[in-house]
């Protein structure tokens, strides 16, 4: 979180909405630990990470959506059920990512 504060504040100072995505649950082997974070602004610019690059693209799209609707969302990524998840983690683990707009 510490390393993202200045980027969050710069975005807010420009009047951009900023969405925060946090890893809130992990299972098996995952590249980033519980609490790992990335931020996304309404232009799709991002900083930080929630995986080793496997799901960031999808999280950016979801972050922009959350900024549009104002409604937070819980995302689940894994490889256990390929029909449910169109993006997966190569390491075989699962993560839940909570995306919310920073108030």
């Amino acid at each position, binding site marked *: *979180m510490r390393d993202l504060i200045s980027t969050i504040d710069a975005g807010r100072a420009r009047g951009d909405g900023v969405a925060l995505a946090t890893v*809130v649950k992990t299972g098996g082997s995952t590249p980033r630990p519980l*609490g790992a974070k990335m931020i996304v602004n309404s232009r799709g610019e991002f900083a930080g990470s929630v995986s080793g690059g496997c799901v960031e693209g999808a999280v950016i799209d979801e972050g922009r959506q959350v900024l549009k609707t104002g*409604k937070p969302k*819980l995302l689940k990524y894994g490889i256990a059920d390929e029909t449910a998840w169109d993006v997966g983690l190569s390491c075989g683990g699962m993560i*839940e990512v909570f995306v*919310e707009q920073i*108030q």
Partner: protein
Amino acid sequence: MNIYDELKHNLADETLCAVATIVSGAANLGAKVLVYPDGRVRGDLGNASLNAEVMRDAQRLMQVEKSVNRVYGDAEIFIEVFAPKPKLIIFGGVHTAIPLTQFAQALGFRVTIVDGRGRFATRERFPSADEIIVAWPDEAIAQIKIDASTYVAILTHDPKFDIPALKALSATHPRYIGSMGSRETRKQHFAELRAAGVTDEFLATVHGPIGLDIGARTPEEMALAIIAEIVAVRYGRSGSFLSERSE
């Protein structure tokens, strides 16, 4: 001040706190509370008993600096602990304090050396120390912020310093206090401290002889035993062999 701004303030200020967020299930998706170690709560998860239950769990988690995902009824809640940079206060600018300073700094601790003897607490002996204080223990403790992310190692091994240090520390609440010295020395020091009004409850929290049992002989090995004990206390573990764990 909203929760994000207060958290930002706490991070800058190095204040220990936890944020709990409803991430799934319940009606109030995204509702948050900010919790402090003393039980103060900002925000609302939607009902008073949930706030109280999460507050108690967050207090326990802050003690071991651990974030968790937990289910309360139909609400999945992520409790994230934001811990400040740990601080190590070393009393006694002795030989073991030199490698201990290096090991602790490599592990991300801010290190302060305290000694009443100016010849021990020097910049030449401790070139990398974040702070060096030449003062008696009680004077030094009065000017240092001691909180739940502060760890104290008393290495002076001299009752002139050790006893006043423990007496002054008994009025503070660090995460860890370890004190160098044999069981016999410890018994004598504790008897004096009890006579001076220090409680058994406090004395029971003092780790002594200091360090994990790794057979340390040299100052470097003693420093390793001490910093390993500190890390084990930080994360609430026993410091035994991983290979002997059942899971």
